Structures are given as C-alpha cells and as structure tokens.
C-alpha cells in the first residue's frame, strides 16, 4: 500500500461516492473512515455558499434551495481554478447552457453572466466619473473627434432575452417580460454596481469607445447596429451613470 498522494485526495474530495484514500487513520489505530468527510463537507459547503452568495439574481429566480441543488453538480464539474473565491463561478453560464433539467429556462446563462458582471464591477479599479460640464464645453467639431474613456467598473451584458425585464422581475417585481432582446449596462459610480437598461445601439457605441475609437466612429457603430438609436439619450445615460471617466481631443 503506497501512501496517499494529493492527487488521491483531489479525486476523492469532490466525489462523495469515491473511497477514502488509503493510509489515513483516526489516531486511535483505526481507519479514517467518515473523518475524511469533514474535508469533503468543508469544500462542498464553502463552494455552495460561494455560488449562493455570488449569484443573487439566479437565487431570486430559482429560489435558494434550487440554486443549492444546482451548485452540487456544478462544483464537482468546475472546482475553483484560483484561490480568489470572489471570482468563483465564471464557468456557470456555460454549465447552465448544457444543464438539461433547466433547459426550459434558456435565459439563465445570461442571468448568470449578469451576476458575474456585477461582481466584476464591484471589485474593479476605482475611477472618478467625467464631469458632464466638460463635455458640454466642447465644440461639436471637437466632440466628434473626442476619445471618451470608460470606467474600469463598466460592464455590458448583451442578451437575446428580455434581460432587463427579467432583472427587474427578480429584484423589484414587475409584469411578465415581453419577448424582446435587451442589453444591460452596469456602472459603479461609488462602491455599489448599478444596472441600467442599455438601449439598442448602446453596446455597439461602448464597444467602439472601448477600442479607443472616436465619438463619431462610436456613433456610426451605434447607428449601424440600430438605425433609430437615440444618441443624445445614450450619451445622457452614460454621463449620468458614471460610465465615462475621461475625455481627450486628439491634436
């Protein structure tokens, strides 16, 4: 009998049905037996809590007991790959896409992405929002060339589902969602991530700004995506929500 390796522990850790590694005792001359389950239990409880705490919108939609039940097969398939537990669960959207028991709730992967995006925003670097007065003082010709910097805590979650209505329903109650595609903008002016409905064209606009393109190029991207995009309203939302942090006019 060879001594147990950490690979043996790893194999046995996430599978309750796996045998306890050999070479472990109870300190009284007997085998370790159920004592090994203390470690299994600590790991499963800790990871389950991380899922329950880390996905509040999934919890609101599914109920806590159902989310715990979902966590059990998820944590076996996807144990953490990093000791930063606040990042745990990045694989959950993909897991949900192939999880047959919840296949009838096709929007759940997008809900999981939304919860992940809010968590990322919470831990992102701090930045001071752009003062709207600065933008107002720019001549229109310069504004077209301007490069607008995005807050590190900004996240865009695109969805083919009515994600904004689902979000409202989960956290604030609301009517049954109408079947339209909705994107969500997350910003964090202070320390608390805030969700906003991002109108059509907004994601294209922000994507262009994120690539360092000019306000004019971003506007064209928005209109290409949604010909009736209301650009002034979009800019108003971005300023009000603290999405923008810098303004630079290339010389």
């Amino acid at each position, binding site marked *: 009998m060879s001594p147990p390796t*950490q690979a043996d*522990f790893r194999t046995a850790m996430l599978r309750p049905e796996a045998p306890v590694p050999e070479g472990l005792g*109870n*300190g009284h001359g007997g085998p370790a037996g159920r004592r090994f389950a*203390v470690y299994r239990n600590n790991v499963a409880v800790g990871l389950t809590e991380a899922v329950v705490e880390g996905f509040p919108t999934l919890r609101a939609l599914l109920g806590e007991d159902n989310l715990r039940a979902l966590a059990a097969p998820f944590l076996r398939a996807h144990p953490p790959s990093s*000791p930063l*537990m*606040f990042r745990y669960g990045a694989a959950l959207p993909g897991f949900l896409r192939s999880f047959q028991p919840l296949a009838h709730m096709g929007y759940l992967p997008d809900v999981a992405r939304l919860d992940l995006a809010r968590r990322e925003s919470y831990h992102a670097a701090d930045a001071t929002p752009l003062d709207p007065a600065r933008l107002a003082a720019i001549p229109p010709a310069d504004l077209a060339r301007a490069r607008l910097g995005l807050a590190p805590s900004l996240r865009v979650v695109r969805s083919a589902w009515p994600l904004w209505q689902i979000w409202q329903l989960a956290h604030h109650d609301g009517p049954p969602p109408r079947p339209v595609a909705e994107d969500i903008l997350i910003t964090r002016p202070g320390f608390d991530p805030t969700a906003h409905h991002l109108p059509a064209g907004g994601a294209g606009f922000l994507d262009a700004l994120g690539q360092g393109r000019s306000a004019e190029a971003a506007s064209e991207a928005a209109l290409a995506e949604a010909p009736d995009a209301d650009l002034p309203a979009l800019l108003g939302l971005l300023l009000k929500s603290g999405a923008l942090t810098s303004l630079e006019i290339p010389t």
Partner: protein
Amino acid sequence: MFDQSPSRLPALPGVGFKARHYGAILEDAGPVGWLEIHAENYMGDGGRPIAMLRRLAERFPVSVHGVGLSIGGEGALDRAHLARLRDLCDWLQPASFSEHLAWSTHDSAYFNDLLPLPYTSATLDRVVSHVGQVQDALGRQMLLENPSSYLSFDESEMTETAFLREVARRSGCGLLLDVNNVFVSAVNLGLDPRAYVQDFPLETVGEIHLGGHDEDEDDAGRPLLIDSHGREVADPVWALLDEVLTLSGPKPLLIEWDNDLPDWPVLAAEAARAGAALQRAAA
C-alpha cells in the same frame, strides 16, 4: 536576513475583520488593538473592500493572513498568487504575514479548505523550500500556523511540534500557534493538548489564534471536533490558552469568527476575554 522579532503586532487582542463590523470598529473598537484580514478577499483592483482596508490600516496594525497559497502542495507555489500577495503587502505594509501548514491546490484545482499533510522528511523539505520562497518574494519573515486535524497519516515520521520546530529552524520563519486547533487535533487524535503546547517552540511564536469549534462524532462514536469558527471560544480552549501564556508571556492574540457572524458587541466581548487573559499573563 529578516527582522528577527517574530511579528510587529502588539501583544493585545485582535479580531478577524468582517465588513459588517466596519462601522462599529471605527466608532469604538473597545479592547481590539489590531485587525487580521484574509489576504484573498483583498486582491481585487479596487472598490469597497480595498477602500475599507485603506481606512482601517490608518487606525490599526493589520495582519495579513493567507488562506490560499497551498504551502504544503506537492506542486510548485502559484507564482501569480505569490505576486498578488507581494502587491498587497507592498501597499498595505502589514505588521505581519501568516499562512497555514496545509495544502489547497493540486493540478490547478483549488479546494477552499486547509487540507492535511503527512509529517515526513519529504514534506519537511518541501514546506521549508516553499516558506523560503514566500519569505524571499515578500522580503519579510512569515508566520506558519499549526492545522486542525481530523485524521492522521500512517506514513508520518515525526510529531507535528517536531515538524514545525524544524520548519522554523531551517526556514527562519516564525510560527502562529492556534490554540483551538491544538485542542481540536488533540481531542480528535487522542493526544494530550498540554504536552503539545509544552513541546511547542513558543519562542518562535509571533501570534496566537483562538476560535470556536463544533462537536460531532466519528463512525466509532468518538468525539470529533470541527474547527468551524462559528461561535464563542470553548472553555477548555481558554484554559489551554492560560497555560500557553504562562509559558510564553503575552502575545498578539486573535479571535477568529468567520461563520454565523455575531453582532459586534459579542465579538468585542470575546476580545475583552482575550485581553483579560493577556493581563493575567503579564502580571
């Protein structure tokens, strides 16, 4: 090589910091003279956790306690994680850095627990090497904490105290003595907790931990204590602490409460009890 004193924390009660106690601590920390944080919770880029920590660090000495470095791992230390620890220690300049005699990562899977090690010469070589790498990366001495044990390894060749004494001697690290872990391990494995602390190299101890445990039993109906950190410190652990402090003199003394968090007055009362134990030891 490093600052020779095992830690720059004051010989006062400290508590593990939880965000829900932030306001209460700033208003009136009571007997609490320093705070400990779990390093991994402060490795984001910004936001509320780091803002809170910056503010607290202006008022209190801070101890950084790592829970995810996997110092006992069979594989190499995670260089990215070591760099994150170095960044945290660089900006925070904590009074102490400590980690566990345990492992948690294998083959890129991280288990959020402190998993046990056999006390063999091979494990000793590996732990000494890893502790040395940590101290080199951080440019400071670290403290290594004794684990709570639920089982034993047939292959172990030495006692835990002999193992830790050798790690400290060969790596130059200090030790963190968790008195609750001593009690939990002793009950679980049928050892004498008083003999353990008498055999412990107390001169290397830079910090003491105390926490609550739960009571369960194993397959044979023997008591099995679980290091749960979810309640008050048990009376026999306070008694064992008095024996330690009689031998060691006053040390920085931390109350760990990580689950089923109490309101601040309950935690402050535990810290006050720790303060009384320190005063008895100083008398």
